């Protein structure tokens, strides 16, 4: 199966968007080669603004530019969501300015740069901000759709992307705020987002081999969260597992927990980064170290069942 990093899709999507929407401008903080905004820079040099290594300034500059009718897309590493958080909160979300954030290299699969650069908290930080929409696309095709949708939303949007190449699935219909049923099932349901789709698909196969029929639902939108779909599958399967490449505190798992509490859930377990920082390593080794490979996920679910 073709593999493509979601950050690469983000860069391609910006170029496509730039062709049809002349209000779109792109800002970066000296990481255009990594966030993949260099494609936009090349295609539309007059609409690309490097803000230097000053992420906080980039966010407020984008806020100011948005007041002139532009649609700025800010790009940097997801770990710098923390560094520019006050600007995202007060500069953009509080006044509901029309600024988009395409933050890449999220999660431990950033790899070798290590724990200082591996954002395991960005979804939590973004979810809690009023007026913010949060996307976590699970593959390149979904990322194209997220970028397109972000430009149409009047207000701040955060798009979480990954460095690691991951499978490109057949395009699925994307509606902001809606989850996607990847596979139906009756014994338990797995809720996931982002690049963990690949590994949960693997886990579903492993579980099937053990005679467990697991449903799999992906949530490319973390906020507003598709509570209805989460509740529907909770009612149907009763046993609920969440899998994310993010801290188990404040991310998808907690979004699900808030939605399904009191809805007849019999078993609930959050699988993710267990309140620890990451470290250097190859992405595949890191996934294994933190228990996020398909077989490990399947084992934990089977054990719990």
């Amino acid at each position, binding site marked *: 199966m073709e593999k493509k990093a979601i950050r690469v899709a983000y860069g391609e999507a910006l170029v496509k968007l730039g062709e049809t929407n002349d209000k779109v401008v792109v800002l970066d903080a000296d990481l255009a080669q990594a966030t993949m905004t260099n494609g936009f820079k090349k295609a539309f040099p007059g609409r690309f603004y490097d*803000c230097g290594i000053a992420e*906080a300034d980039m966010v407020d500059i984008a*806020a100011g530019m948005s007041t002139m*009718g532009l649609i700025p897309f800010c790009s940097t590493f997801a770990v710098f969501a923390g560094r520019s958080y006050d600007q995202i909160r007060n*500069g953009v979300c509080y*006044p509901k300015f029309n600024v988009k954030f395409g933050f890449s290299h999220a999660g431990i699969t950033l790899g070798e740069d290590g724990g200082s650069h591996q954002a395991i908290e960005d979804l939590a930080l973004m979810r809690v901000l009023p007026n913010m929409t949060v996307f976590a696309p699970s593959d390149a095709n979904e990322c194209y759709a997220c970028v397109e949708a972000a430009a149409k939303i009047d207000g701040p949007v955060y798009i979480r992307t990954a460095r690691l190449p991951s499978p490109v699935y057949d395009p699925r219909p994307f509606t902001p705020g809606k989850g996607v049923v990847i596979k139906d099932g009756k014994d338990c349901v797995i809720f996931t987002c982002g690049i963990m789709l690949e590994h949960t698909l693997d886990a579903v196969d492993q579980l099937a081999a053990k005679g467990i029929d697991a449903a799999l639902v992906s949530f490319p939108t973390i906020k507003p969260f598709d509570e209805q779909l989460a509740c529907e599958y909770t009612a149907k399967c009763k046993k609920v597992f969440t899998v994310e490449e993010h801290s188990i505190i404040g991310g998808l798992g907690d979004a699900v927990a808030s939605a399904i509490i009191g809805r007849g859930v019999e078993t609930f377990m959050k699988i993710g980064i267990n309140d620890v920082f990451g470290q250097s390593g190859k992405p595949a080794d890191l996934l294994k170290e933190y228990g996020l490979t398909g077989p490990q996920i399947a084992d934990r679910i089977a054990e719990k069942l």
Partner: protein
Amino acid sequence: MDIQALEAQARQVRRDIIIMTCKAGAGHPGGSLSCTDALVALYFDVMKGVDPKNDKNPNRDRFVLSKGHAAPALYGTLCERGYFGREEFDGFRQLHGILQGHPDIKKCPGVDASTGSLGQGISIAVGMALGAKHTGNPCHVYTVIGDGESQEGLVWEASMAAAHYKLDNLTVILDHNGMQIDGTNDEVMSLGDVKAKALAFGYDVIEVADGNDMKQVLDALHAPACPGKPRYIILNTLKGKGVSFMEGQVGWHGKAPNAEQAAQALKDLEG
């Protein structure tokens, strides 16, 4: 508008500041009184396209109060300029009031940016000026920053970007009253030679000896732009200007006058 009329407007805005903060029992009178002359000069004389009946006119000059805690000065100025009635003062810092503790673009007409988290306003103003250049909007962007605020690194990140992008449609105005919550700038965190710093960052700098003198303020604000450079105006001001017992007093940074003090202040501010 002639200078006497502008000075009278400034006195009225200062009275508004006292009335507002006294009623609310809270607010920041000291740093509001120090920048009042600059705000009045901007809204009544300098800025183009200021129109309360068309406050979203896309080509209007923009103003960002980066030192957002001086909100009473902005509210007084906007009120006198006709953006809303004086009855709104009753709601200053109150539930459902349009005059929030710090300026809120979603609630208060005439406000161009929500500010209060120090350092952000100047950065937003840089973005506005850059966006204006990008879109061919002829507007000019003005922002008032504090000297205490200038301890925020973001002020200097924004300054670097302003020079890099040659934003000659941007004027940064430093309300240099020398004081902040915990003491003088020099006691808390010295700014050093702020003029040399501004020059080194690539600004075209004008220093105004008395930033509470309307004529001097107007001369600086009307000085022709320097092509390719953002403008930085240092206004040497007096914290608490116009109110005898507040002038030069650190303690009036974030404290409201009681009824008796307000009566004295209003007497000081009689025309």
